[in-house]
């Protein structure tokens, strides 16, 4: 009963000093905004990863040839001699490997871009004076077998065994590209030849199918800067890409090993590494194989992400601390300004307890409003931040984060308001009434 009266008194007081109230709330607002951002981004990233992992269907282990004392991918030793053909993983090595682990390894995914004379693998398709940005990339058959659900066909067909085996010059194009280069005419696109200019080197493919363009979930480096004219992939068979790169007889630096769903990829990864290194790289002076399981990657990212989280938590903690000092300060001002009112209330029968409660409620109201604004800003900023991340993430707003934020705000209010409220409660009624 007194509770609602106190709230309306507090709100009337805040309204009377709008600017002051807003400034006081600032620290709380920033603090709660940070808390909400942590929750939204944290949850979204976690959810995004588990989605990627379940969508992948199978666990994969990356096998990469790298300089011998490479500890992680972000810190590659570049003081070694240049890589040559003898350092690479050959087809024979792969066949033997598959045979050796046929109960555990179900497939090998390989991918390779065609560069031509371009530096970054970016090329263009020009039709009817419309220039579209593209990238030519070959994927092995197992890619579509195990990660087929990443590609949705819109029209036409996928690749045939023959296309892979013979390295045929066939391709799949994105519906986005059809929109630009073929004015959306899918029927006309299928069966057409498409010519790609890779900085002066031209490649021509026969379009056999159209797939649905998607902002790539996991592929960091997908260009999202120009949504109307995104860089789309011209997809060709892996073998075709190898021929284009004149590498059909060479080995490869990089493969993705798809393991059986029963196999624990994180445990199996070192076994693969040791298999290759003992068998093929023991005598190599500079290079060997490193392995990265998907779980490792997730762990790596998560630990990096934890640092970001801690940074935001630091910002949140400092802002809330500064905010609570601000609230304490403004409450002291408020108590002083309203000394006469406190005296009057005591003359009318207010107990020390009810005066204390009134001012604590006021501090809580300030913090609660600040917290509510913070929740709103946090959701907005968190969602915006997710769009900046190189991943396609659904913003995950959950009740827990909001409830925790509200509880934090209320707690800050109680802590910040207690000492000024206590000062008000302990005022001698006559001194308070006589205060000018």
């Amino acid at each position, binding site marked *: *009963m007194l509770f609602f009266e106190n709230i309306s008194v507090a709100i009337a007081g805040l309204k009377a000093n709008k600017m002051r109230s807003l400034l006081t709330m600032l620290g709380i607002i920033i603090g709660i905004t940070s808390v909400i951002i942590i929750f939204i981004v944290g949850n979204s990233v976690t959810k995004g990863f588990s989605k990627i992992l379940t969508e992948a269907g199978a666990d994969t282990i990356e096998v990469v040839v790298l300089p011998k004392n490479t500890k992680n991918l972000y810190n590659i030793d570049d003081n070694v001699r240049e890589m040559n053909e003898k350092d690479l993983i050959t087809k024979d090595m792969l066949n033997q490997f598959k045979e050796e682990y046929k109960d555990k390894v179900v497939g090998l995914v390989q991918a390779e871009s065609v560069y031509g004379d371009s530096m970054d693998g970016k090329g263009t398709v020009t039709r009817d004076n419309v220039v579209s940005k593209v990238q030519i990339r070959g994927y092995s058959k197992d890619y579509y077998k195990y990660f087929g659900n990443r590609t949705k066909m819109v029209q036409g067909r996928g690749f045939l065994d023959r296309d892979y085996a013979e390295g045929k010059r066939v391709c799949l194009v994105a519906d986005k590209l059809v929109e630009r280069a073929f004015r959306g005419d899918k029927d006309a696109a299928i069966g057409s030849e498409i010519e790609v200019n890779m900085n002066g080197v031209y490649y021509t493919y026969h379009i056999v199918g159209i797939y649905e363009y998607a902002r790539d979930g996991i592929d960091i480096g997908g260009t999202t800067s120009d949504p109307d004219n995104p860089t789309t992939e011209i997809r060709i068979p892996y073998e075709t890409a190898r021929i284009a790169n004149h590498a059909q007889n060479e080995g490869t630096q990089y493969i993705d090993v798809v393991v059986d769903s029963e196999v624990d990829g994180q445990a199996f990864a070192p076994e693969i590494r040791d298999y290759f290194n003992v068998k093929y790289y023991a005598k190599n002076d500079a290079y060997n194989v490193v392995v990265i399981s998907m779980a490792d990657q997730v762990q790596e990212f998560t630990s990096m992400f934890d640092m970001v989280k801690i940074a935001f938590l630091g910002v949140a903690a400092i802002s809330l601390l500064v905010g609570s000092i601000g609230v304490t300060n403004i409450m002291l001002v408020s108590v002083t300004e309203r000394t006469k009112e406190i*005296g009057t*209330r*005591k*003359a009318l*029968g*207010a107990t*020390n307890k009810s005066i204390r409660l009134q001012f604590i409620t006021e501090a809580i109201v300030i913090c609660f409003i600040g917290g509510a604004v913070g929740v709103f800003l946090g959701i907005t900023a968190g969602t915006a931040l997710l769009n900046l991340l190189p991943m396609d993430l659904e913003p995950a707003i959950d009740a827990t984060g909001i409830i925790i934020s509200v509880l934090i705000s209320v707690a800050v209010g109680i802590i910040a308001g207690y000492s000024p409220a206590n000062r008000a409660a302990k005022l001698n*009624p006559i001194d308070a*009434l006589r205060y000018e």
Partner: protein
Amino acid sequence: MEGKTILDLRDIHKSFFIGTPNEFEVLHGVNFTVKEGEFVSIVGQSGSGKSTLMNIIGALDQPTAGEYTLDGVDIEKAKDHELSALRNKKIGFVFQTYNLIARTSALKNVELPMMYAGMGRRARNERAKELLESVGMSDRMMHKPDELSGGQKQRVAIARAMANDPAIILADEPTGALDSATGRLIMDIFHKLHEEQGKTIVLITHSPELSMETERIITLKDGSITGESKGTWQGLQAKEVK
């Protein structure tokens, strides 16, 4: 005077700055009683100690020495929360400067003592409306103090003082900040409360003229009671007949 004793002050002393070189005594042993239903005035010059006395009577301040009983309760022995309850239920204050709570409607101001008394929302709202009506303020109930004139504010303050039907109304210069016509109006409200409801009222004033309107006049001079006399008031009816 066969009614029960509401106020009983015996040898009340009050000093300020106790124990310091500029310690001084404002009240030098004040004795008097007020019985139920009396309309008493305490009159004296500025600085004579009237407000100091009223603060003691109102349980806002404690005497340095002496005994004070309010409606049977020994004030000296009362604890903090008991004093709060006493101020809430037994005393209705009317201040010279109104002391309404800012940013709070007249209605809420009148409800406040009832709220502190723990009265339910509906009941206190109804009573506050009745009280405001009785002081002729029913059309200004939703106004905030800064939207009211001095006389209107004081009428709200009187309604608020009546909220918990106190044993005594303590008014310290209630007309001090008002022009004479408005002051008259406020005095008439006190007379009405006294005559129609038998309220016990202690009026503090520096004006001998106003004090003549009360039944009993206690004269305070330099912190001591120097005399007591009867007023000449004929009653509200008599005035209207004139």
